[in-house]
């Protein structure tokens, strides 16, 4: 009997290669790559966390907003005259930055518009009826289906099969990964640099917007106490629209950064798992907390990168979810807690 148990244990642990050496030798490389991935999670997570902070709603369709952003930036690149071939264009540094910037703006416009439109069409009627939170969640799921299927079936018919459909888009690649410099023996590519720098700028800008400006004060006021905020002259509807807009804009920016990293990821179902991860990141940091979402994204990105080397590529998502469950067991409201609405003394 003991033999069979040992055998069972061996079968169980067989496919899990516990490769601690690889983790040790590649530690800094993994950290840097993980940070780049985590920066993308962080930007998407902000959309979840702001909407949750203001409306107490899991915007399940936010992953689809992100997916629309990928298509938005792709469409802009098509309009700029690029033909999808999968080869890398060499446009010179300045022009590349210009094209990337334009594409990012395109993605942001599409995502931001879609997020605001979603709020108007799907959530506002429910808010008027004082629907319970599960109803919002189901509507969000319904909207998620509709947006995915729109890109899956309807968009190709509207665009003469240029966009959407069953298959992923043939990538338009503007930047080839190229080593720029190295820290602690880890190579930093230009793509990593672009992702980290853009994400940093956007994160700081969002943080300043929410914590320093008049609009940001309105968001925090509504998150803290909608009724009192309304009495103090804050327009709740406008604040809600604003939070959806910020979330959408950041998702659109993240969409461009993501396609730099994963050029073949532009597909109608491409937002789903990333959305779940970003939501995990938001919960990890403390949902409703802006800085928590940014921190949670980075932690998740780095940890799952360690995990996939330690246990094998297939275990990457498992590491992410187990990490989430573990952290919530010990800190039930996330690492930084829910504090978007807490008053500043």
């Amino acid at each position, binding site marked *: 009997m003991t033999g069979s148990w040992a055998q069972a244990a061996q079968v169980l642990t067989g496919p899990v290669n516990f490769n601690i050496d690889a983790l040790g030798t590649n530690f800094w490389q993994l950290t840097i790559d993980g940070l780049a991935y985590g920066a993308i999670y962080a930007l998407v997570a902000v959309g979840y966390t702001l909407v949750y902070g203001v409306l107490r709603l899991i915007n399940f369709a936010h992953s689809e907003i992100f997916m629309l952003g990928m298509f938005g930036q792709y469409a802009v690149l098509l309009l700029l005259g690029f033909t999808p071939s999968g080869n890398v264009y060499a446009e010179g540094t300045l022009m590349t930055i210009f094209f990337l910037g334009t594409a990012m703006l395109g993605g942001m416009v599409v995502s931001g518009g879609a997020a605001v439109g979603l709020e108007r069409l799907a959530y506002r*009627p*429910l808010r008027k009826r004082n629907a319970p939170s599960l109803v919002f969640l189901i509507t969000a*799921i319904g909207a998620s289906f509709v947006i995915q299927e729109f890109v899956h079936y309807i968009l190709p018919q509207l665009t003469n099969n240029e966009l959407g459909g069953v298959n992923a888009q043939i990538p338009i690649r503007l930047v080839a990964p190229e080593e720029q410099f190295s820290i602690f023996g880890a190579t930093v590519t230009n793509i990593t640099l672009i992702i980290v720098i853009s994400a940093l700028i956007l994160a700081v800008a969002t943080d300043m917007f929410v914590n320093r400006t008049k609009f940001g004060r309105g968001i925090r006021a509504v998150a803290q106490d909608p009724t009192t905020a309304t009495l103090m002259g804050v327009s709740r509807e406008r604040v809600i629209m604003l939070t959806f807009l910020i979330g959408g804009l950041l998702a659109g920016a993240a969409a461009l950064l993501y396609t730099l990293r994963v050029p073949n990821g532009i597909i109608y179902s491409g937002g789903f798992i990333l959305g779940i991860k970003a939501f995990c990141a938001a919960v990890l940091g403390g949902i409703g907390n802006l800085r928590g979402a940014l921190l949670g994204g980075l932690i998740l990105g780095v940890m799952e990168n360690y995990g996939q080397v330690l246990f094998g590529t297939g275990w990457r998502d498992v590491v992410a979810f187990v990490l989430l469950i573990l952290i919530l067991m010990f800190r039930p409201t996330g690492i930084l807690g829910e504090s978007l609405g807490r008053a500043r003394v």
Partner: protein
Amino acid sequence: MTAPLDSRPRGGVGDGFRLWWNALPRPVQWVFGVPFIALLAALPLLNIPLLTTVGTNFGSVMAQFGMIALIAIGLNVVVGQAGLLDLGYVGFYAVGAYTVALLTSPDSPWNQTGPDGWLSKDWAWLAVLPIAMAITALSGLLLGSPTLRLRGDYLAIVTLGFGEIVRLLADNLEEITGGGRGLSQVAYPRVGVTDQFPLGIFSAGNVGKTLNSGVWWYWVSLFLIIVVLLFVGNLERSRVGRAWVAIREDEDAAEIMGVPTFKFKLWAFVIGASIGGLSGALYAGQVQFVVPTNFNVINSVLFLCAVVLGGQGNKLGVILGAFIIVYLPNFFLGRTEILGIPIDGDSIAEYKYLFFGLALMVLMIFRPQGLIPVRQKLLAYGRQLYVAARRRSEEATTSSGPSTVEVNK
């Protein structure tokens, strides 16, 4: 999380029917119920023209409906009654299916149907059924005990993570679960072996005729649904059910009133899980083949939709929700006309998620409580109160206009 409260004036057809039904004595309810169940069971055999699916076999559709209905009943215990948002229910379905597959498939290292196993080949499925339920209940306990202290949306994401973890385990533990190849030749009840059906009536090979394996599985699941409904219905009317409602409506208030909320939440989770496991075991037996892709998160979402669509908290409502989710896409498949009006059924079936999403959004705006909403009864007095209320409302209507008696909360 609060259950949708209905502000419409009472007294529609549905409420009238409900009042009448609840006032009937139990034996009379059975007298009406049995022929109705018999009719439901006979549906796949009657071949009603507008009801029967064209593109796929109606028996298999009904078998699938039976399984999803079981799942909806189980998920309804968790979501509808105890108010715990579970987005990873498919995980329990997968655990149930994989338990059966691991113990009975020849591809599995833990196969017990071989020469030195302890399962007979013909009855392996039935023997494994309680094991599958027990293991799924255990997995519910394992997931629930650390996570049920979390509230609302945190619980939702943790359960969603659990559902994904189960699927990824099935995908990654290749030596045991066969990974993406899955496990084939899962056991099924090998009964009714004749020359015509050399592998028995429950074999997936029994196809094409009116009385195919799908119909047999539909009947099995119908029987299990009735058993589970009786069990869950009794629970609902007991102390446990009252505790669940109290937790759903206001957890803090329930705790203050002396309800051990954690314990009852865990009960709801474990009972819901074991029903999910039962359905998973049915699935494994019916298709005799399990692969990880059948247990995607999207299925969890669909199950939740069945519950909310039908009316969370209402057992018959969620069964209707399950029927709609399974039946509608299959209804349009291969259909070229409805009542003489030509339609392109295949492309409608292809766009099913689009229509489905739109329907969910519209439904949530106009009927957020679901198609058959639950009515909150004064559970402690139950039947007596109904009888009394009905008598008094009848007196009131005969003497002076509409009744003012408010039986429903």
